[in-house]
């Protein structure tokens, strides 16, 4: 049994802390704090402030951790809870281990924890963390082998540096050429995730305006043709067809395909979307989506849905048309379904209002005009922070009390009123607009562009997009959200900062870097690999065969390089030292000629460079003695030669 030295324990804690830090940010609050405290215990042991804990304390600590975990997550079944459990156990471990063997196993687990983080997050900064964490773990493994060394000892840091830097080429080649399989091998049951900025799964009053406080990127788009007009940039996301008087919900159900009859009236234009991971099923596309990417399909409400939630950045091609006709062969039930009894009961005054419009003979376009007129005439305000109301339903509260709200209030109320008046309508959430990146030329859509609008079905026109927000705040549609709240710097602090020129530039470069990162690193999959292999002319080779041949070949090259580095070559030491000596002089302009013997060279040096004369003679003499003398060189002689050559 080999025991842990204090040095090894400190290195273990350094590596472990570096690995766990980003994980802590993903954990729920109290668990993060608990894990942090437990790590502190480990540090306490590393600095010998805390003695070896009795078994009883260890047991209690373990029990508390496990109980807390099960209360928060239940049985660990998925990725989030699984890695949370690993993180918790890894943080607990160093407090109680005594043996090197266990520390080594813990460090190997750390390698896996780095990977576990990348199963969910993949920002550029995380890539830097990857190298840093791997470097620290590798150093800690070396520290386990060493007996007693200062913390930052060359003996510990250099091997890790050699190993890591020699691995980068191998990693690069394998990354590009290793066969990638499309699609997941299995899937965990999906868990509810906490705190992800993105479009909501259910539309409540306030769920969009929350998003507006975030400047995180939602998606980027590159257009093959010219950029559509700003008022056409409606990015269509989830469609909400069910309303219970409070909350709008999506019509759950499999993506069975749309019965729509959508015909473009203008030539189709292609564009590419790079969508950030939002952990939801839907993909965003310009309204209306004409085609679905290969692994997705249309829902009855013509959402583009994937089979599995999107946990990674995803790139796909889409098509748009300036004009189109969008009829429904048979309207889906959810769209036909008018107002449920509960919804009407919760919002009685609004329901009555809509019924009175219907009773007065208003239909279709006239009904919509009446509705927009209501929003324009009455003192409706567009605000992010509507006052609280006492009404039982949000629609009543909005229409008759506060008369202030954000796009989801307008869209939700409009859809309810239209339905109550007998017109098929639904709420659509997504983004409106986007900013052109001045350097990259692509469109960046951020979370603060989140928006909600209404789709209405007219018998003779089909589905038509109605944006009630435009009635109240037309500049929202034309100039984007920033135009609406120019003074409110509390929540556009990022854009306020952007007034400083260099900060703006910096932000632009950052976004550009992120764009290429998404494209080349995160988006590198079977598709892009095929493109690359095609360019290299390797596509015809069976990829598996090429890898089978390639791997040993790579190993051979790596081995050869390592032989060169660590010096297993047969050149004796004195030759190496002498070689270093005349190469150094060659840089000063006194190169040794091929024909020159060491003695002749030293004599010439003595003539041409008198300052070096004495040293050169000594070097030549000692070198010749070591190389050709009868007795082999002793260590002292070699050391002396090294000293002479280094002068």
């Amino acid at each position: 049994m080999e025991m842990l030295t204090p040095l090894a324990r400190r290195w273990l804690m350094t590596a472990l802390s570096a690995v766990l830090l980003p994980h802590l940010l993903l954990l729920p609050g109290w668990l993060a704090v608990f894990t942090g405290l437990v790590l502190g215990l480990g540090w306490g042991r590393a600095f010998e402030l805390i003695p070896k804990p009795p078994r009883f304390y260890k047991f209690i600590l373990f029990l508390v951790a496990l109980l807390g975990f099960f209360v928060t997550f239940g049985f660990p079944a998925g990725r989030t809870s699984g890695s949370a459990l690993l993180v918790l156990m890894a943080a607990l471990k160093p407090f109680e281990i005594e043996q090197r063997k266990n520390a080594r196993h813990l460090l190997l687990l750390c390698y896996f924890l780095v990977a576990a983080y990348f199963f969910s997050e993949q920002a550029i900064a995380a890539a830097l963390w990857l190298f840093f964490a791997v470097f620290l773990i590798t150093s800690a493994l070396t520290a386990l082998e060493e007996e007693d060394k200062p913390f930052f000892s060359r003996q510990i840091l250099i091997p890790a540096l050699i190993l890591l830097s020699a691995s980068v080429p191998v990693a690069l080649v394998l990354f590009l050429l290793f066969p990638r399989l499309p699609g997941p091998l299995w899937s965990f049951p999906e868990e509810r995730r906490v705190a992800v900025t993105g479009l909501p799964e259910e539309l409540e009053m306030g769920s969009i305006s929350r998003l507006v406080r975030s400047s995180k990127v939602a998606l980027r788009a590159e257009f093959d043709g010219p950029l559509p007009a700003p008022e056409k940039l409606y990015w269509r996301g989830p469609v909400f067809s069910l309303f219970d008087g409070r909350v709008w919900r999506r019509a759950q159900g499999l993506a069975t395909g749309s019965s729509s009859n959508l015909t473009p009236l203008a030539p189709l234009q292609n564009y590419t979307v790079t969508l950030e991971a939002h952990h939801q099923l839907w993909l965003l596309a310009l309204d209306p989506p004409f085609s679905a990417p290969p692994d997705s399909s249309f829902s009855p409400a013509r959402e583009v849905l994937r089979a599995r939630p999107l946990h990674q950045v995803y790139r796909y091609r889409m098509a748009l048309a300036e004009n189109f006709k969008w009829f429904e062969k048979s309207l889906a039930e959810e769209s036909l379904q008018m107002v449920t009894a509960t919804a009407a009961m919760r919002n009685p005054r609004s329901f009555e209002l809509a019924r009175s419009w219907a009773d007065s003979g208003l239909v279709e376009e006239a009904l919509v005009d009446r509705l927009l007129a209501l929003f324009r005439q009455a003192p409706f305000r567009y605000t992010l922070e509507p006052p609280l109301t006492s009404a039982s339903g949000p629609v009543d509260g909005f229409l008759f009390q506060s008369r202030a709200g954000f796009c989801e209030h307008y869209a939700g109320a409009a859809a309810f009123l239209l339905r109550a008046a007998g017109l098929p309508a639904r709420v659509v959430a997504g983004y409106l607009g986007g900013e052109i990146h001045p350097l990259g030329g692509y469109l960046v859509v951020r979370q603060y562009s989140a928006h909600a609008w209404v789709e209405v079905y007219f018998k003779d026109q089909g589905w038509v997009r109605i944006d009630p927000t435009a009635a109240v705040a037309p500049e929202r549609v034309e100039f984007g959200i920033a135009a609406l709240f120019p003074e409110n710097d509390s929540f556009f602090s990022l854009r306020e900062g952007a007034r400083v020129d260099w900060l703006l530039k910096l932000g632009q470069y950052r976004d550009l870097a992120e764009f290429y990162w998404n494209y080349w690193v995160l988006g590198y999959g079977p598709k892009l690999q095929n493109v690359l292999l095609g360019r290299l002319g390797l596509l015809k080779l069976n990829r598996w065969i090429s890898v089978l041949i390639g791997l040993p070949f790579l190993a051979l090259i790596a081995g050869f390089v390592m032989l060169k580095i660590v010096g297993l070559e047969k050149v004796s030491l004195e030759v190496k030292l002498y070689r270093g000596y005349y190469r150094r002089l060659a840089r000063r302009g006194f190169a040794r000629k091929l024909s020159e013997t060491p003695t002749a060279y030293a004599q010439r040096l003595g003539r041409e460079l008198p300052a070096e004369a004495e040293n050169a003679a000594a070097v030549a003499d000692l070198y010749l003695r070591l190389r050709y003398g009868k007795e082999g060189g002793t260590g002292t002689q070699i050391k002396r030669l090294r000293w002479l050559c280094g002068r």
Partner: protein
Amino acid sequence: MNEEERVKFSWRQRFDLWLAGRRPEVSSASRLSHRRLYIVPTRAGLLFALVLLLILVGAANYGSSMAFVLVFLLLGVGINAIWLTHANLSGLIIEPGPTRPVFVGEEAAFRFSLKNPQLRTRSALKWSWYDAGTPKLCCQLRGLSEVNISLTKIAGQRGWFSPPPICLASTWPLGLFYVWTVFRLTPKVLIYPQPAKPGVALPFKAQEGGGKTLFADSSQVLGNDDFVGLRPYRIGDSPGRLDWRALARGGKLQAREFQGNSADRLILDWWQLGEAGVEARLSRLCRWVLEAEVGSCDYGLRLPGLEIALGFGAQHRHQVLRALALFKVSYQSTVIRAQSSGASR
């Protein structure tokens, strides 16, 4: 070796015997090259491979490019660790050192020096007897330096003691791979017989009475001697004869000279021993040699087929003890012992 004997060896033993044939004997300075170094993954190395596999599967499943980057990077680290671990032992020079004879029951020390002829430092080198399990002792060897290592083994039998195989190993830098070499040192240690318990007096022969044997108490022997004077120290003088007090006072090292008529002709004779059995007799003779040295009297030895004339001093003592140690030790028995020690692991 006939068939019956063959089946008695287990596979493990047979493997060890086969391996013993492959273990080079180190008689002079020899360099560790790839011919003599073996490398295998450790338990942690296998675990590392498992972790890599898990990450790879996870990366494929979640389509995580960064996890792919990580797994390929770690694969590179693992492959490079093989070379680095191997290079930690490769090129070292083993040079056997001198041996010193010991008595049965004492620890025989086998020495060798480990030289690093290159500039780079070798870290965490470990060594032990090959049959003692995983090596634990550890040292670092800076560039162009050497370390002298001594491994001990309890001497169990008189005669030549040839050392069992020695294992030199390292798992540096990551502990994922285990590189090792096994070698035997050629210099053997001479094992003197175990001295018998003291108590039987030295067999003095009176000078005058030729043939008449006088058995006397050893204290009496010293008592009869007369102190003659001091003379300068000569190599080989017994420690008991030195004038320590004068030395402590700051004087020169001097030996006391005695003149006694009883001490000069001490013949340790095989045929005049009371003990039965070869080993018991040799033990008794061995004890007498030691006592004679302490008592600083000249002594000789008479064994069947061998006679050593009277003498005194370290050289003489070694000559006598060597004769005792190698008495009727055949080459055959040495070979058998070496084999059995190889197979008993």
